[in-house]
């Protein structure tokens, strides 16, 4: 029997706010242990939380970026469980009225666009971090109370690779939207996996098994690459799977059971009485909506469609947003946007890198690139000379026409002048001339090169070719 996997992901993402979720402590990675703490995030007796509005805004923004419904009324709840890294031994989260619900992520997967639907994205607080020493343990509460977004997917993922691509796409969107830096090494993204297997084509779900403790996207992929065949093997051997939680051991590359359903936590959720329900106004939502940016995939598709760019060029402008925006400001007025892309990607980007400068430092106006392309297209200068003009234009900010004039770089299309160069080239190279006459067509290119050399690159190469051909005709 063939089996298929059904996978859902719960992705935790730290929001990019200046301060923590309930207090004014900095939301900052890397400070010495227990220095970014105060009575509130340490859960000292008597403290109360005050919701960080920027975290609420970033949550709504994420909802908008992920096509979710933004709740007209959201509230916070307490999730009760004891753990040494939990200052209050309850986590403030959103249970039945999350800030956002529904939505989806579209991404490129195996040559097509795949869609993973989302259940919800809700806001909660991060917990501290436990450390275990030889004889004792410690907890660093710097992370406690950092705003955390939990993005829960529907079980739409069918393979380890698809889970991996989904996570990367999600990360790109969140980084792109300015919601999170998603720095895995700093623990800004963490992921739990729910996976079950079932006979292919079956509509019933198998026993749901949760896997925890992956600390990278590739860890998620590896855990699934281990777990899916494991589950199939159990079923093939006639065994049964039961609902449980397993722990991924990254070193050993295996999952191990942590607890079965009978030992599942009863989190005893109830509404957080210290916080009022949140009901965003239209004006508030409009302000958040003004921060919505175009998503990576949409941008790529638009660049390919509107400017007829190949996928690689479009992808370049997705990765480098300012460069893409610059490209658009030029290409919008161009007859041949691909030529603009070539100049921006091959020349401009290289020059910027070489001179360690940025787009705001450019000395020439965006229209100069159009002028340059026009000079080439009209035959006024050769592509090769254009490189030189661009370099000069980049350095001085002068217009391409002015540079061509000043340096006398205009292409020579004067037939008489080119004829003279051709005569010189024919006279100086009897060998190749003989070769050409004997039928070696390639020899003409050599002679054309000699004409260009004699003209210091300014001869119109097409014209030179025509004249040489005419002169060498038997």
């Amino acid at each position: 029997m063939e089996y298929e996997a059904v996978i859902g992901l719960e992705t935790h993402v730290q929001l990019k706010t200046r301060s923590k979720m309930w207090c004014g402590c900095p939301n900052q990675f890397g400070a010495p242990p227990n220095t970014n703490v105060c009575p509130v995030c340490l859960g000292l007796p008597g403290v109360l939380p005050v919701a960080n509005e920027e975290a609420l805004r970033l949550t709504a923004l994420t909802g908008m970026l992920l096509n979710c419904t933004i709740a007209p009324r959201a509230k916070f709840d307490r999730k009760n469980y004891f753990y040494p890294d939990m200052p209050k031994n309850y986590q403030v989260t959103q249970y039945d009225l999350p800030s956002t619900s529904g939505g989806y992520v579209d991404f490129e997967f195996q040559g097509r666009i795949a869609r993973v639907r989302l259940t919800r994205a809700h806001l909660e607080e991060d917990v501290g971090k436990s450390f275990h020493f030889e004889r004792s343990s410690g907890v660093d509460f710097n992370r406690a109370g950092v705003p955390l977004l939990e993005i829960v997917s529907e079980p739409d993922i069918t393979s380890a690779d698809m889970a991996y691509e989904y996570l990367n796409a999600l990360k790109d969107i969140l980084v792109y939207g300015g919601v999170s830096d998603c720095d895995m090494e700093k623990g800004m993204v963490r992921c739990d996996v729910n996976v079950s297997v079932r006979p292919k084509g079956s509509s019933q779900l198998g026993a749901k098994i949760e896997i925890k403790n992956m600390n990278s996207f590739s860890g998620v992929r590896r855990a699934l690459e281990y777990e899916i065949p494991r589950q199939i093997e159990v079923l093939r051997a006639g065994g049964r799977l039961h609902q449980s939680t397993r722990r991924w051991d990254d070193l050993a590359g295996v999952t191990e059971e942590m607890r079965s359903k009978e030992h599942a936590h009863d989190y005893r959720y109830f509404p957080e009485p210290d916080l009022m329900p949140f009901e965003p106004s239209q004006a508030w939502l409009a302000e958040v909506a003004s921060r919505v940016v175009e998503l990576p995939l949409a941008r790529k598709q638009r660049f390919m469609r509107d400017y007829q760019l190949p996928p690689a060029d479009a992808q370049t402008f997705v990765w480098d947003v300012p460069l893409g925006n610059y490209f658009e400001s030029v290409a919008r007025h161009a007859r041949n946007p691909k030529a603009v892309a070539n100049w921006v990607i091959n020349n401009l980007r290289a020059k910027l890198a070489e001179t360690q400068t940025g787009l705001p430092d450019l000395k020439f106006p965006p229209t100069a690139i159009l002028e340059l392309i026009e000079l080439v297209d009209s035959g006024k200068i050769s592509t090769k000379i254009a490189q030189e003009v661009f370099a000069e234009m980049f350095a001085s900010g002068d217009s391409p026409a002015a540079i061509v004039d000043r340096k006398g770089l205009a292409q020579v299309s004067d037939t008489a002048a080119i004829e003279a160069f051709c005569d010189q080239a024919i006279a100086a190279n009897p060998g190749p001339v003989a070769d050409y006459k004997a039928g070696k067509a390639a020899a003409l290119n050599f002679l054309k090169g000699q004409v260009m050399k004699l003209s210091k690159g300014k001869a119109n190469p097409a014209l030179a070719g025509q004249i040489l051909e005419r002169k060498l005709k038997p």
Partner: protein
Amino acid sequence: MRMLNRLTISELVTRLASREVSSRAATQACLDQIERLDGRLHAFISLDADHALAQADAADRALALGATHARQPLLGVPIGIKDVIAVKGQPLNCASKILGRYVSPYNATVINKLQAAGAVVFGRLNMDEFAMGSSTENSAFGVTRNPWDLSRIPGGSSGGSGAAVVADECIAALGSDTGGSIRQPAALCGCVGLKPSYGRVSRYGLVAYASSLDQIGCFSKDVRDAAILLEILSGVDPADSTSVPQPVPHYAASLTGDVKGLRLGLAKEYMVGGLDAEIKAAIDAAVAQFEKLGARVTEVSLPHTDYAIATYYIIATAEASANLARFDGIRYGLRVEGADPIELYSKTRGAGFGPEVKRRIILGTYVLSSGYYDAYYLRAQKVRTLIRRDFLKAFEQVDAILTPTTPTAAFKIGEKADDPLQMYLSDIFTISANLAGICGISVPCGFTREPKLPLGLQLLGKPFGEETILRLAHAYEQSTPWHKEKPPLAALAG
């Protein structure tokens, strides 16, 4: 001149402002009274006399430099603090063993407000552990005794606050009220106890028992002092999301003595059989007195009254089960080591919490458990809404509701200790106000004959209707002798 510790806030302020007396002398008078009485009364868990006197000296210096009570209404006035409100640099125990030698590193908002007003903030007043109880018998530091009869309880949970004010160990005191914890001990000790509307006073720095019910309030020797304190304590606090941005009136201005035409409601559900005959007589007399003052008394109905206690014990314990989870021995307070975190938790909490606290945590954990949530917690929230509606509807007909504060006078220590249900019933008249979020005040309304024990009447007002109940309470107080009576402390002092 009367002993300074016996003065009210307004009396002491007059003398301080005229530089007739010093804050140091007033504070020392309180400390002396504590020295004389508290060994037997046990209203205070601990006391930092040096800290109190240093604040008094600072107040005296400020007065010498021209500071005025117009700008700092409590300048130099010693105010006692219930051991559930955080004061920077002072112990915070909530009358529990579990906090060990914990010292608060920050001030509650009300403490900042009192200190900004110039008060001498001092002492850790005894209470039922984590404010859970009605008798102060649940304190891990020993029971507080009623100043009128040392064999009786002072009420609770703010029993220390009530006893200290009545015994003149401080000029006034702060307490907290989750189901009657200010009004009930005020009634049983014989002073004024005010529970403000939910959201009126910031809860930041009040160790939470039941967050949606808790409210900080005050104990005072008369209604005017309650008005003065409320004005200082009130106001929206950016650190408490549940505090309400409602303007703070000049409460003392509402004490006009004129209650003509004000409508007073008697809840028919509260006038049930089983009410102590002496209390009934006292309430009847009070009603007659209000009528004499020109108030109109009518009957109102609060049909869901019967469900209040059950509703309260579901919501309060559910919230408490989470609020008290932080006391785990990991970061602060008592720690009993264990082989792993779970063992450490259970040993620490097993040793640190008293039986009533454990009972409520277990009850709260149960009502929130999977499979029971809908039947208990969710239903209780619905009933709570109905109870609030009862009051809002009644307040369409009347300006305030008059009830006894307690069903009986102070009972004997140990009398109800083994019967938690009987104990819970002693809050029957006070508990609904917390569920409804409304305000309430208890004022002395007489005494039982033998033994002579104080009785209190309660006035309940609309949300943010403190002006009305203060006005009524003040007019009644000023037309009756009860608030002037003092317990026979001389006998205690020997």
